[in-house]
């Protein structure tokens, strides 16, 4: 059954539309019942009144006929007796006396009387019935007058009553339509009221997903909604605590690693000073150790920086920086001898950006590092002025990065499938993730695309806002 309902329920309709429709249908049902009851009662009532009024009048007319018919000629019956009867608008007398039929108009005569009524009256009983006369509702009353050997009939046009009932029905239909519409509007309004807390919840959930972990729902006095709000807030608090604990853990671990690293670095230094006293194998081992200590230091530094970002504790030390000079310096510092050409237009010499020198230098260094590890070395570093900023472009001649991995490479400890296949064993680790964080905090963007000249290779672009040029 439930499944049937589920299948019947249109999937495209939202909760709000469904509530509205339910309200409208409810209002329709209610107003239909009310209207039809009202109509039926009113109709019966009005008909009764008309009938009893007609009956008493017909009896009066019948007794008039009964008294006067004995001494009246057929002509007098037609010209005097019938017109003297009490006849309101729409009442037509038909008299059967002296073996003849009398009526006031030619259209109404013995044939107008329903045969069953005639048969009833013929057998000596008075009767009445409603029927259709010339396509109009009508009441027929028949009274036998045995003492005068006559039968008196009266046909009463009920079409005025019908039009009253019609207009009543029309009004009731109108009322039902209005009620249904009002029900729909009420449903729409009520559903909005009802769903508002849900909208709040969805907004709060979005805010949390967007990183504002301290977002909470307002406490409410409504006992029904209070449960939702408090369980939502509990969930958010648990989530926040967990994320913060994870972040703190990463930060604590990195902090704890610094002291042993410090000792390691100093001890390796001491050994390196005595390198000549060591055997060949020991020297090789020392080289491995020294290399790993450097990598380890970088990793711990990156982890600490990342956990600062996670804790939202990064404050940029902003300086006005001449970007062209800065990038050339950064490239020469981080390329250890193997020089990479920096391409720039002369108009870029005066471009000044606001940046944290240390962090922006890391951006350049990490991009070059990435090109060395995964792109067979950086081919060019270029500076370009674009409409609302300046771009630092690093191109390499590696295999490039397939479209579907272009966002992933900026995630932590991501290794592109391409990079992984190359089996260098050195992950980018946090390098590109930090690039993304640094650039974002500087109000810029970073992305990777195909090389502009069509050669295979990746093209990393950092776009920064310009302070002045």
């Amino acid at each position, binding site marked *: 059954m439930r499944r049937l309902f589920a299948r019947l329920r249109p999937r495209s309709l939202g909760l709000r539309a469904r509530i509205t429709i339910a309200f409208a249908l409810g209002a329709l049902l209610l107003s239909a019942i009310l209207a039809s009851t009202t109509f039926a009662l009113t109709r019966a009532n009005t008909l009764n009144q008309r009938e009893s009024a007609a009956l008493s009048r017909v009896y009066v007319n019948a007794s008039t006929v009964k008294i006067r018919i004995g001494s009246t000629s057929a002509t007098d019956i037609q010209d005097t007796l019938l017109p003297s009867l009490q006849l309101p608008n729409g009442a037509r007398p038909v008299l059967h006396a002296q073996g003849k039929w009398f009526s006031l108009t030619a259209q109404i005569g013995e044939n107008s009387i329903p045969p069953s009524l005639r048969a009833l009256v013929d057998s000596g009983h008075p009767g009445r019935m409603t029927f259709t006369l010339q396509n109009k509702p009508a009441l027929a009353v028949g009274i036998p007058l045995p003492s005068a050997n006559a039968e008196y009939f009266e046909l009463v046009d009920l079409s005025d009553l019908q039009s009253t009932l019609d207009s009543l029905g029309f009004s009731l239909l109108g009322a039902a339509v209005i009620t249904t519409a009002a029900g729909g509007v009420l449903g729409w309004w009520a559903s909005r009221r009802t769903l508002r807390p849900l909208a709040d919840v969805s907004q709060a959930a979005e805010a949390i997903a967007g990183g504002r972990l301290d977002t909470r729902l307002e406490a409410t006095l409504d006992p029904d909604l209070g449960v939702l709000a408090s369980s939502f807030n509990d969930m958010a608090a648990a989530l926040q605590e967990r994320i913060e604990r994870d972040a703190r853990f990463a930060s604590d671990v990195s902090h704890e690693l610094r002291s042993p690293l*410090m000792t390691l*670095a100093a*001890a390796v*230094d001491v050994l390196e000073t005595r390198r000549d006293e060591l055997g060949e194998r020991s020297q090789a081992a020392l080289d491995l150790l020294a290399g790993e200590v450097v990598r380890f*230091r970088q990793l711990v530094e990156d982890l600490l920086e990342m956990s600062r970002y996670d804790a939202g504790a990064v404050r940029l030390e902003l300086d006005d920086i001449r970007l062209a000079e800065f990038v050339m310096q950064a490239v020469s510092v981080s390329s250890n001898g193997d020089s990479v050409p920096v391409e720039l237009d002369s108009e870029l010499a005066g471009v000044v950006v606001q940046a944290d*020198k240390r962090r922006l230098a890391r951006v350049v260094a990490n991009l070059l590092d990435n090109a060395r590890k995964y792109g067979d070395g950086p081919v060019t570093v270029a500076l370009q002025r674009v409409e609302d900023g300046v771009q630092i472009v690093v191109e390499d001649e590696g295999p490039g990065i397939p479209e579907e991995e272009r966002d992933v490479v900026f995630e932590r400890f991501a290794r592109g499938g391409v990079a992984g296949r190359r089996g260098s064993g050195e992950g980018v680790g946090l390098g590109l993730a930090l690039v993304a964080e640094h650039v974002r905090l500087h109000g810029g963007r970073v992305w990777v695309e195909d090389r502009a000249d069509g050669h295979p290779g990746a093209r990393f672009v950092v776009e920064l806002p310009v302070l002045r040029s």
Partner: protein
Amino acid sequence: MSTRILTVEDDERIRTAVKMALEDEGWVVEEAETGEQALEAFQRHPSDVVLIDIMLPGVDGFEVCRSVRRTSDVPIVMVTARADTHDVVAGLEAGADDYLTKPFAPKELSARIRALMRRARKPDPATTTMRFGDLEIIPDAGVVRRGGTELHLTKTEFRLLCELASSPGRVFSREVLLERVWGYGYFGDGRLVDVHVRRLRTKIEADPANPRHVLTVRGLGYKLQG
């Protein structure tokens, strides 16, 4: 006599390893585990360079820094946990000449120490005394007087002043000053210059808030005016 270095560090392993590395540079290293020990050792026998870890139990590194500064112009290198905190500025304002963040390579430390122990550059061998208004600088003797009264500058402050004095009126960028005074390349921390200029002003300016000698040129650097 060889250079004596006092290292203040509460982690014994780090202390030992750093001591060995510094001794390999030919320096004599004296160790202190706490701030109190350090101050006591320094009073007993002042060293040529002091290396202070800011995070010390008891008397913290800032306090050790200030106490040493009260009696001495010896170069002080402090070790901080992070480069981007207020710790760096606070340490420099407490009197440190330079800083390193943990974990650092001992080679960086010895490079820092060597840079701080360099003598002030003589602006011109022929010049023995330079005058800028009420200010009088005698590079050879390491003496600065204002209105005849001798001022106590640290070695680094004095070198900074001499550097600015070598071309009066010329604007020195922070990068240039970092390189000439501290031996850093382009990527040195500009706050070193800013805090030292501030410290220098409190000593040589009559009104440090409205300096007349060491002027800031917005967005460019600093210059010395007569």
